[in-house]
Structure formats: structure tokens, C-alpha cells
């Protein structure tokens, strides 16, 4: 594919000729979104060719440039976070560096995210690639008070380091002058003895490829890079391959984590030291010794568990107890039902002169709104039910949850939570990378389903989509679940939590067994722990509340409208009757729960809010019986395992297609009821 216009065919031909004749190549490498393509454009000018890298759908752009009086090929590669690939894009970049010969690498680094860029620099140094480092977006970094001592960095690395502002072509001339003299960086990483011993076995067995050093290839192999399997099979004898595998197994047995993780961690430690040496002021890699220690404890296999439990308990106390009890009680009763609903009803009666219209909108005068079917104020009124669900019951709970989530983000604990959950998810038959969509699912299952794209294989994407739809409650639902659990005993809450974890475990494990394929590692850079800034937390929370109001509230109103119409035509009674064999007969729930279940398809939290309202008087009066607690657990289990919301179902449809979506739906609906029924029987048998 060629992107240049037809009229420029002559220039295109000239470019092809230049590309064929140019003796050397510049390869641009860098993290995603660092300005590589802008720098590529500045180096090459207008005419470029864009073609798919052989055997892939990943595009690689080529152009030409004159450097030091000679023609050069210039290649722009897909953004990458390292030379051990975790996606097809990253593999293309690594393969280009691996198979091209006689090239100079121009690493483009975002100065604001220097640490991430230096992680690639360290790998290029290990690979012995001749390079020049462009510290791009230097102006933005400076404006944020982040300055890098480029001469010092150049002295430590032993390569040219050029601060650039690609969009303004600043630094371009220095890069053009530096590239012909590009040389390998001097930064070397000394790994643990176990890894160095394995490297001593594997490195001599690696064949030179022209692009990357044999030590670099050996590190990729030790890190479990499956994309090099074909290369190994083509270049090593079976006995040599066995030697490599044995060295890898021996080294891996020395660590509880994967070798890829250990190698990345040790490389990052070297990068951190370099980072602290060259960052003049602004964000240093860690705030304090205490921050460093806390950061390390929070991902420790043993110490991390009580920290995780403490964090989850604090979340529960704040969201489940403060948000769901204090805030909901205040907003729902004191603000909504005692003031806003009567005011709104009075306003309707004042503004609408016709009695019939008044009765249609706000019901007969003097009758409590829960006992009539007014359109705006009534049992299923848009104001008295739709808005009160959205604003008085769910909003205070999700707002406290969003505050918690923002605190977790701003403190730097959220990625550590992902690391801790990684270990748990691995036991569920998921690969570590699945942590991200799963954690994101705690925010919104719809966007998390989209994020399942980061999984490498279809198998992984289907498993993640299934588990998200099945058992990961979104923030709004989680908040209402917290609220409901706050009203029952600890034992009942434990029944709920254990059931959901077991179901996720079992379904994930079974799906991983049934669907063939392989997993991969999860490597996430951990920012330092820091004290959250209240201003930041407020802004993040507000942004999420705005998002919630835009997305959820219209569905709440639509759900109420549907209920209103069903109520008017006698549909609710019919639905309750039709669903009674399942809701009452199988799940032992009150008949009224049927409408909550059916509308749960619009949003799970809508259904949960309906149940919350049903049991709230008993919780407040302290008259919840054990049988009621069983009902709450059974209802919550069934609703949690239900499809999250209509938006999520459409997303599954878009992402996975009709067949898989219907298969997921066909599995989830009977499965959720089946698990609910089993929990009901077990609890009544063992607990009542």
C-alpha cells in the first residue's frame, strides 16, 4: 500500500529507487505515543510508503533521508514497551530490529515518561544496537518542572542524547548530525546469579542475526518469549534446545514469579538508578524510603495480603457503611422523599390546571405516591422512582466508591492491586494480562469488555469477556452490593463473596481447560506510592460522577418508563406470575423480585437498587431474619452472575459476534439461576 497521491507517482518511484540504493537504515523505536511518527515525517519529508510487515496486518512506514551527504532508509516502527513482545505490534518492532542489518536506531523517548523510555534504552544497550536517543517533548516536560540532564545521560550511556520538540522540528539538525555516528550504549545490567548462570549456558548457543546481540536473544528466551520458538527450532539442534529449556527451567525454579517478571524488575532497578542520576528536578522515581518500602510491601506475596485486606476493608467501611447507610438514608429519605417528591408533586399540581392531567402525572391528591400509578410521581413514577433510584440510592453509593477508586489511583495502589490480583487470577486459569480488563470491570464492564482486545488470543478474549459478564460487578453494582451486604451478617456476606469467587474460579478454570491455547505474562510498571492530593481526587471523582450520570441515569429513566408501561397494562403482575416458578419456586425469593430481575437486564445495579429498597426497612429496624439474609445472598448471587447491563451485552455482540454472544448469554442466564438455586438450598440446609 502506498499513501502518496497518484500524481506523485514519479516521486514514489524515485523514493523506491533511493530505498533500494541506500546502504544504511535508520529505525525509529519508542513507546507508543511519544512522537516517533512526527520525527519520522520531519526526517523523511513528504513521500513515504506504508506496507504491512510480512505475515502480519501491522503497518510499517518507510521513507528516505540524506544524512551526512549519503542516502539512508528510514523506518518507523509500531510503538513498543520493550523488546520482549507482548502483542503483534511489539513483535513486529522486535523482529525489525532482529532481522534488519547495518542500521542505526533512533530511540524516541517522551521526556515526561523518561523511566519508561530508559527501559527500552537498557534493552537496546543489552542488544548492542547502535543508537541515538531523542528526548522528545522536552518543552512539555520542562513546563511541568521535569528536567533531564541530557549531557550527563549522554556521558553515562555513551551515546548522543538530543532534547527535541518534534512538532517544532527542534533538535532535528542535531539528530541528523548524530545518526551517522550512532554507537551502542554502555549501560549494562547485571542480573542475579541464577539468571547470569542461565545466560552463560544459553548465550553461546544463540546464532548471530545481525540485529540483536546473542545475550539479548538469550534474555528473551529466558523470559519465555514464544515468538522466537520458530527461530530456535530453525537454528538449534534438538539437544541444544533441550539445554536451553533446562537452563530456563533451572533459573525459573529459583523464583516464585515468572522469569520475565524477574528480569524486568532487575532491569528496572538499574533504570531507576540511572533515572535518579539524570533527572535534575521534578518527579524522581520514588518519594521517600517509606514510600519505597510501602510500595514493595504492598506487592509482597505475604505482606501484601494483609495490606490488600486492610484496603478492601477500608473500601467496604467507606462505601458499604458510610455511603450506603448514612449518605443513602440522608438523600433518600430526608432529601428525596420528605422534601423533593412533595415539592415536585405540589409544583405539578400548581402548574398543570387540569385535574385529569394532574392525576395522570402525580396521582390522586392526598394518596401516598407508593400507592398510585402517577407518571411522574407514583409507584413507578419517572421522578419518584427513576430519579430516586439514580440520584438518591445509587449515586451516593457510587460517589463514595468513585472517591475510593480515585484514592487508589492517585496513591499508586491501584496497579499494585492489579499485581496482587494477578496472582489470584492466574489460579483461575487466566493469564496475568487479564487482570487489567478484570480490574477495569470493577469500574465498567462495558469498557472492560472492549479492553479484552489486549488479550493476545481469541481464547483469552472469550474467557475474559465471559468472566466479565458473569461475575465481575461494575462499580455501580459493586456499590449497591456493598450496601446490601452491610445490612446482613458477616457470615451471609462471606457466603456471597465465597460463591462469586468460587464461580469465577471454576468457570475460568474450566474455560481454560476446554478452549485450547496458551497464556502470557503480565508486566506493569509500578509508579511510586504517594500521598493522594485531595484536589486531584475531587476532580477524578467528579469526572466519574459526570460519566455515571450521562451513562446510567438515562437507562434508569428508560427502565422506570418500561416498568410504568408494564404496570399500566398489567404486565408486571403477569411477569411476576410467569417468573414465579423460578423466582419463588426455585430461588425462594419474594414474588416482587421478579420485576427487579427482569429489569436487571437494563442495568444490574437497577435490579440491585430495587432489592435494596425492598429490604432497607428491615435492615433499618434491625428485624432482618436469617431467612431474609438467605434471600439477600441468593438474590445478590443471581443478579451478580446475570448479564451486567444492556450496553455490556451490545458490546459483547460488537466485539465477539452473534454466535459467541448468544452462547455467552445462553450460558449465563440458566447458570446464574442455577447457582442462585444451589446457594439457596445449601444455605437453608447448612446455615438456617
Amino acid at each position, binding site marked *: 500500500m502506498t499513501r502518496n497521491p497518484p500524481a506523485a507517482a514519479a516521486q514514489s518511484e524515485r523514493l523506491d529507487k533511493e530505498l533500494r540504493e541506500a546502504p544504511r537504515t535508520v529505525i525509529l523505536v519508542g513507546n507508543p505515543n511519544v512522537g516517533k511518527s512526527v520525527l519520522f515525517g520531519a526526517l523523511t519529508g513528504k513521500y513515504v510508503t506504508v506496507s504491512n510487515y510480512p505475515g502480519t496486518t501491522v503497518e510499517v512506514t518507510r521513507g528516505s533521508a540524506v544524512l551526512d551527504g549519503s542516502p539512508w532508509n528510514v523506518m518507523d516502527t509500531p510503538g513498543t514497551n520493550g523488546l520482549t513482545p507482548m502483542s503483534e505490534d511489539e513483535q513486529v518492532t522486535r523482529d525489525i530490529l532482529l532481522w534488519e542489518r547495518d542500521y542505526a536506531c533512533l530511540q524516541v523517548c517522551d521526556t515526561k515518561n523518561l523511566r519508561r523510555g530508559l527501559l527500552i534504552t537498557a534493552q537496546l544497550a543489552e542488544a548492542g544496537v547502535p543508537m541515538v536517543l531523542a528526548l522528545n517533548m522536552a518543552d*512539555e516536560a520542562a513546563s511541568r518542572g521535569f528536567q533531564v540532564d541530557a549531557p550527563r545521560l549522554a556521558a553515562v550511556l555513551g551515546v548522543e542524547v538530543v532534547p527535541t520538540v518534534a512538532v517544532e522540528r527542534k533538535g532535528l539538525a542535531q539528530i541528523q548530525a548524530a545518526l551517522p555516528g550512532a554507537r551502542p550504549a554502555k549501560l549494562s545490567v547485571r542480573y542475579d546469579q541464577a539468571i547470569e548462570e542461565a545466560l552463560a549456558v544459553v548465550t553461546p548457543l544463540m546464532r548471530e542475526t545481525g540485529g540483536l546481540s546473542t545475550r539479548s536473544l538469550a534474555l528473551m528466551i529466558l523470559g519465555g518469549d514464544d515468538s522466537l520458538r520458530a527461530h530456535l527450532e530453525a537454528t538449534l539442534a534438538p539437544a541444544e534446545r533441550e539445554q536451553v529449556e533446562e537452563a530456563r527451567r533451572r533459573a525459573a525454579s529459583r523464583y516464585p514469579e515468572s522469569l520475565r517478571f524477574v528480569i524486568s524488575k532487575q532491569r528496572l532497578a538499574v533504570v531507576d538508578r540511572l533515572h535518579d542520576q539524570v533527572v535534575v528536578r521534578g518527579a524522581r522515581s520514588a518519594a521517600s524510603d517509606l514510600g519505597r518500602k510501602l510500595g514493595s510491601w504492598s506487592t509482597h506475596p505475604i505482606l501484601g495480603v494483609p495490606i490488600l485486606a486492610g484496603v478492601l476493608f477500608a473500601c467496604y467501611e467507606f462505601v458499604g457503611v458510610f455511603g450506603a447507610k448514612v449518605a443513602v438514608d440522608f438523600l433518600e429519605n430526608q432529601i428525596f422523599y420528605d422534601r423533593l417528591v412533595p415539592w415536585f408533586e405540589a409544583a405539578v399540581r400548581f402548574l398543570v390546571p387540569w385535574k385529569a392531567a394532574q392525576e395522570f402525572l402525580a396521582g390522586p391528591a392526598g394518596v401516598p405516591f407508593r400507592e398510585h400509578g402517577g407518571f411522574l410521581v407514583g409507584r413507578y413514577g419517572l421522578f419518584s422512582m427513576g430519579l430516586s433510584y439514580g440520584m438518591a440510592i445509587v449515586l451516593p453509593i457510587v460517589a463514595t466508591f468513585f472517591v475510593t477508586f480515585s484514592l487508589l489511583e492517585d496513591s499508586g495502589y491501584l496497579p499494585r492491586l492489579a499485581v496482587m490480583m494477578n496472582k489470584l487470577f492466574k489460579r483461575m486459569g487466566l493469564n496475568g494480562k487479564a487482570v*487489567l480488563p478484570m480490574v*477495569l470491570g470493577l469500574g465498567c464492564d462495558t*469498557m*472492560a469488555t472492549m479492553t479484552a482486545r489486549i488479550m493476545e488470543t481469541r481464547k483469552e478474549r472469550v474467557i475474559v469477556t465471559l468472566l466479565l459478564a458473569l461475575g465481575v460487578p461494575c462499580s455501580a453494582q459493586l456499590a449497591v452490593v456493598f450496601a446490601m451486604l452491610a445490612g446482613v451478617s458477616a457470615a451471609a456476606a462471606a457466603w456471597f463473596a465465597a460463591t462469586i469467587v468460587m464461580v469465577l474460579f471454576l468457570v475460568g478454570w474450566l474455560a481454560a481447560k476446554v478452549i485450547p491455547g496458551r497464556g502470557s505474562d503480565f508486566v506493569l*510498571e509500578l*509508579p511510586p506510592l504517594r500521598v493522594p492530593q485531595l484536589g486531584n481526587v475531587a476532580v477524578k471523582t467528579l*469526572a466519574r460522577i459526570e460519566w455515571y450520570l450521562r451513562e446510567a441515569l438515562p437507562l434508569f429513566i428508560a427502565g422506570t418508563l418500561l416498568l410504568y408501561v408494564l404496570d399500566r397494562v398489567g404486565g408486571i403482575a403477569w411477569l411476576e406470575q410467569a417468573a414465579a416458578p423460578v423466582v419463588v419456586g426455585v430461588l425462594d425469593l419474594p414474588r416482587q423480585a421478579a420485576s427487579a430481575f427482569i429489569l436487571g437486564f437494563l442495568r444490574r445495579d437497577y435490579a440491585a437498587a430495587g432489592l435494596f429498597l425492598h429490604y432497607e426497612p428491615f435492615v433499618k429496624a434491625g428485624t432482618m431474619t436469617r431467612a431474609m439474609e438467605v434471600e439477600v445472598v441468593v438474590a445478590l448471587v443471581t443478579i451478580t452472575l446475570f448479564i451486567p447491563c444492556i450496553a455490556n451485552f451490545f*458490546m459483547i455482540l460488537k466485539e465477539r459476534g452473534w454466535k459467541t454472544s448468544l452462547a455467552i448469554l445462553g450460558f449465563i442466564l440458566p447458570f446464574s439461576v442455577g447457582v442462585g438455586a444451589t446457594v439457596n438450598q445449601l444455605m437453608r440446609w447448612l446455615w438456617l
Partner: protein
Amino acid sequence: MPAVVKRMETCPLCGTGFDAEGQGCRPSCPMASGCRVICCPSCHYSFPQESGLAGKLRGLLDRRRAAR
């Protein structure tokens, strides 16, 4: 089209700074229209962009910080 405002953002999960343009909700999402959720190009974490009221509060806080 997503209602994402073009400006620099920092990922709350991995700390990557990135240009929000082109990182908005994908059109495959049924609720993408007007959606302010953006996606980190580095770790794919999604979060709502601080625009609207939150953007105004952010501006106010930034101005107060600058004045100090």
C-alpha cells in the same frame, strides 16, 4: 464521535503521559457517542477524561496552584 478533548493526559494506572486525541472510546461501543472515556496507549487502562464540570474544577485548582 467521542467527546474527547485534545490535551495531554496522564494514565492513573501506569503514569504514562499521552495525547488524548485519538484515544477516545472506540466506535464499536454502543454508547461511544459523546463518551469521554479515554484509553491509555501504554497499558490500555480506560478512564473518563476530566472535562465538563470536572474540567472546570481542574482549571480552578491549576490556577490556584499557579498563583501560589
